[in-house]
């Protein structure tokens, strides 16, 4: 059994509390099941909210997941189902995985297929319902390179169809670029209804001596909205005692804006095309530094292991072309307590 509490606060007046409890059990050596419940309570007075001239909002998302696996000799089949709901959003999703161990477990291939069906609503407007469907796949290969290192390569493609704008976001045509101040025209956000997203991932990890290891993750992402990004995330892990592990993380992220994104839409003719006020589609970069500590200890002689972990991070998002917001600083952390009985 595992429980975790994630908390986040940022300079854009957003606060998130997200507790999570998961129970997992292996029925025998070949199959097992798990179930989890999570909440996502957030309060926001973000730039999106203020530019739409609405009040600060508080909302709770509830999520239930379940899953299981069955292991054959070199093949493991696993799958899961997820249901998530909040007052203006509902989502059903599923995932299936095939894991194949090859070459005496030196090589592991994993094929995953996933999909979801969402219903996007709008608070206070029961007649507003827009569907969104997602389907995707991921193929990864993990290869042992030596007695102290391994490499993972993966490719993931996801197709999304349906409503992908925010029902709360309005875009100013003319004026200073926001609807908070008088603008000649404000129109609902309008983005394409189809999106094909691709990500290529490489991860490598190497042990140095008996107490130190380092990893490097790289991801290149591109989609047919013209948005592309790169992520580089090195980390260093140190075994500081018989039971404690300390980890230092760094993550750099940079993205190019979507083709139809503009900080300001100035012409009246812009109102008939795709328009967005979504800063996630603007050019931006972020830096995150983090620290984590994990501690394990055996409870008695019955085979029960208690794991406690704390992971914290400081992030700065820098927006290169978003009217009204230059950057956001955030502090986040997760506390984990887990009991494993074997």
């Amino acid at each position, binding site marked *: 059994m595992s429980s975790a509490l994630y908390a986040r606060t940022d300079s854009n007046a957003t606060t998130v509390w997200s507790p999570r409890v998961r129970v997992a059990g292996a029925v025998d050596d070949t199959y097992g099941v798990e179930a989890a419940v999570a909440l996502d309570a957030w309060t926001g007075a973000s730039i999106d909210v203020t530019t739409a001239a609405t009040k600060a909002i508080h909302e709770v998302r509830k999520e239930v997941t379940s899953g299981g696996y069955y292991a054959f000799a070199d093949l493991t089949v696993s799958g899961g189902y997820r249901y998530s709901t909040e007052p203006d959003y509902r989502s059903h999703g599923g995932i299936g995985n095939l894991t194949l161990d090859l070459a005496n477990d030196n090589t592991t291939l994993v094929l995953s297929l996933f999909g979801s069906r969402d219903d996007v609503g709008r608070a206070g407007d029961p007649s507003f319902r827009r569907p969104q469907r997602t389907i995707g796949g991921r193929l990864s290969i993990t290869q042992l390179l030596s*007695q*102290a290192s391994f490499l993972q390569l993966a490719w993931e493609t996801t197709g999304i169809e349906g409503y992908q704008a925010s029902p709360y976001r309005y875009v100013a045509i003319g004026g200073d670029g926001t609807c908070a101040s008088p603008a000649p025209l404000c129109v609902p956000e309008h983005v394409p209804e189809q999106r094909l997203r691709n990500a290529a991932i490489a991860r490598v990890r190497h*042990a140095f001596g008996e107490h130190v290891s380092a990893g490097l993750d790289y991801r290149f992402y591109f989609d047919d909205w013209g948005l592309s990004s790169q992520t580089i995330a090195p980390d260093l892990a140190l075994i500081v005692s018989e039971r404690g592990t300390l980890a230092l993380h760094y993550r750099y992220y940079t993205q190019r804006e979507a083709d139809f994104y503009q900080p300001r839409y100035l012409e009246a003719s812009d109102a008939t095309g795709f328009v967005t006020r979504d800063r996630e589609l603007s050019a931006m970069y972020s830096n995150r530094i983090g620290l984590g500590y994990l501690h394990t200890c055996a409870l008695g002689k019955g085979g029960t292991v208690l794991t406690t972990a704390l992971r914290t991070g400081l992030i700065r998002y820098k927006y290169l072309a978003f009217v009204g917001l230059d950057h956001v600083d955030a502090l986040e952390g*997760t506390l984990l307590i887990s009991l494993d009985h074997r």
Partner: protein
Amino acid sequence: MNVQSYGFVLILLVTGCARVAPYERETLARRDMQLGQNPDLVAGEEHGLAYREGSSGGGDAKAGGCGCN
């Protein structure tokens, strides 16, 4: 060179690596060498990233719903 050729070369490169016998994997099994973080430990972070950045994919957690925080 087409995509299939790149894939074939990649598989040759990867599967051509030195074999590591099960009894030689003590270092690889160390707790600091685990590739994926505990999913409960990173679920909140990854869900947040997915809704603050324009890109997604490659993470271990497959959280869903909007939760557009």
